[in-house]
């Protein structure tokens, strides 16, 4: 074992009441050992990995004693997910139909050019595999979770997409991220998108896969002045997978960014979304649908930071939890002292589809100036018994009637998806996810 591990262990030991420390400690040691193996390799990304490794050593590993991890246990990782690397798949499994004319395929974090349709002129693609220099993370201080640092420290492959100034793409770019393994293991996926000034692009991130594989995902998006971004984060992996992801979005001056996050629960799903409003005139719109099924766990932590005046953000997230599923939502709006004229809204609405399901939702506002418009609200309810009876009295069987009402609950979000291909994907996806949510 190395110095870095020892130093973390020492720090942990120095803390007052180490109730759940053993697991966190064990996982931290595994993460370090894993990161060190990669960080030692010498290539164009070495400095990047070394810096991340140092950060990883400094951060305490999450335990349920940490407020941000209160509702999410990492016990599921105790099966050795951080020890074993998910295999490189020599033979590519069957892939689903693309959602866009340009599709980049990553399998267990590794880019497969032969399975991909490369993006058009005006978009450059750089592989983050150490073969070329790449700028450090767009916002290192934004990568606040140990898993994001682990992603950087252990990075072997990833994609950097740059859309040149003034380029307007008339169709989306899809990045398909497949995670698949038969044994408890992990993969890291890394994706960075940079939109140039005055450009327009749509990115579809689609996560699929099965098996006890932990996908540790980091996506960073920066957009240039007066640009337009549509972003989808579709997380449709099977229920036995694990996913811990970070999304960092930093919109440029006078730009417009819309992000749609559609996901179904799995053995462990945790998303940390951080939106940095650091340019005036920027607007960010975040929408999402979360479906919990079986005994799955879905935790979304969203934080919007308004650091400059006159930026706008709105968020609408809807969750539905069936069977014994659990949904956690924490939506934080932080308005800094200088951010006058900020307009920020947050709404999280949840529907419990069964008595065994659970939703924990919390809005947080932190406001340090008076000249702002800010609203937030969260609700949690169940299916309307009157509406259910109405549908059944018209001959619609109970399960179908319930699905219909659940669809109705999120329909405003579905019908607002700007790309037809995604809508056509989303409707059957939701139908399946809701059907799975019924089964006890």
């Amino acid at each position, binding site marked *: 074992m190395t110095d870095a591990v020892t130093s973390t262990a020492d720090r942990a030991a120095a803390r007052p009441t180490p109730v759940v420390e053993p697991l966190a400690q064990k996982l931290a040691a595994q993460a370090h050992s894993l990161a060190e193996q990669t960080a030692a390799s010498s290539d164009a990304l070495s400095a990047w990995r070394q810096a991340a490794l140092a950060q990883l050593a400094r951060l305490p590993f999450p335990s349920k004693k940490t407020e941000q991890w209160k509702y999410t246990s990492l016990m599921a990782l105790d099966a050795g997910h951080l020890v074993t690397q998910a295999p490189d798949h020599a033979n590519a499994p069957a892939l689903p139909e693309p959602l866009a004319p340009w599709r980049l395929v990553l399998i267990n974090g590794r880019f497969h050019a032969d399975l991909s349709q490369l993006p058009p002129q005006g978009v450059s693609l750089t592989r983050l595999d150490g073969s070329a220099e790449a700028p450090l993370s767009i916002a290192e201080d934004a990568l606040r979770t140990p898993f994001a640092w682990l992603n950087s420290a252990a990075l072997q492959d990833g994609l950097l997409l740059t859309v040149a100034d003034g380029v307007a793409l008339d169709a989306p770019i899809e990045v398909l991220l497949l995670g698949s393994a038969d044994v408890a293991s992990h993969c890291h996926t890394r994706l960075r998108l940079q939109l140039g000034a005055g450009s327009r692009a749509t990115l579809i991130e689609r996560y699929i896969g099965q098996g006890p594989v932990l996908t540790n995902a980091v996506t960073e998006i920066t957009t240039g002045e007066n640009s337009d971004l549509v972003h989808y984060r579709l997380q449709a992996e099977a229920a036995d997978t694990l996913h811990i992801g970070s999304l960092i979005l930093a919109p440029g001056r006078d730009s417009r960014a819309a992000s749609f996050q559609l996901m179904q629960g799995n053995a462990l799903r945790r998303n940390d979304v951080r939106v940095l409003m650091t340019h005036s005139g920027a607007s960010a719109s975040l929408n999402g649908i979360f479906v919990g099924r079986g005994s799955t766990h879905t935790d979304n932590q969203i934080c919007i930071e308004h650091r400059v005046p006159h930026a706008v953000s709105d968020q609408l997230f809807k969750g539905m939890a069936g069977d014994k599923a659990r949904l956690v939502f924490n939506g934080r709006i932080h308005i800094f002292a200088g951010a006058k004229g900020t307009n920020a809204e947050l709404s999280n609405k949840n529907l419990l589809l069964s008595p065994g399901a659970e939703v924990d939702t919390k809005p947080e506002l932190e406001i340090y100036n008076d000249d702002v418009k800010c609203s937030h609200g969260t609700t949690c309810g169940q299916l*309307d*018994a*009157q*509406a259910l*009876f*109405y*549908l*059944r*009295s*018209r*001959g*619609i*069987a*109970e399960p*179908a*009637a319930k699905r*219909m*009402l659940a*669809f*109705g*609950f*999120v*329909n*405003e979000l579905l019908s607002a998806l700007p790309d037809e291909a995604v809508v056509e994907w989303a409707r059957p996806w939701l139908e399946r996810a809701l059907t799975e949510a019924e089964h006890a």
Partner: protein
Amino acid sequence: MLEIKDLHASVAGQDILKGLNLSVKAGEVHAIMGPNGSGKSTLTNVLSGRDGYQITGGQALLDGHDVSELDPEQRAHAGMFLAFQYPVEIPGVSNLEFLKASLEATRKAQGKEPWDAVTLLKKARETCKQVDLDPQFLKRGVNEGFSGGEKKRNEIMQMLLLEPRLALLDETDSGLDIDALQVVARGVNSLRSPDRAIVLVTHYQRLLDYIVPDHVHVLAGGRILKSGGKELALELEQKGYGWLTDQEDAPA
């Protein structure tokens, strides 16, 4: 078609129906009238299978089958239709989507030929016109933001498309202006046929000017107090219910 024998029913532990008898044959139109709180809505709710309405005695038979053994959707499949007194608003589910699911499930259960999307849309549009409802309403959420009259016409539209064998109309006339009342009445009358039965629950004789019943019943205190022909409705209009319910209250 519908045989109700000594039916007792309670809501939240309170007895509402106390030995109701009613026999409705195919081809007939029955009107059930009565004062507030007499059990009229309880009757339609019990028949259609709404949660919370408990049959505590007697039985209601639809074509010889005990309805209490059927789920609400199975009652619909058996040909029963309830036009709601207060139709429910369901935002996010379009009227057309709802009709499609309803007709698909019901027609399948009834062994009728399914309608393809084009036929469904054509029929739905025609029926909208029949009840004076703008076909644009098909795209809107079920009853979402509809006026009282529009909701009632939407009920009649569903009824006409589903072609029930037994239609129960729970105060469909309440809150309607005279034009809407006529539209509703036309819709109901167009459904009249020798193999269908219609039960109208209403406060007012007014509706019966447009839908002429074969039988009129007075429901009070959870029982049918008096039955007669259409002239009974006129008598009630003149005299009110007092003369019947007073009789009932008097010591035997």
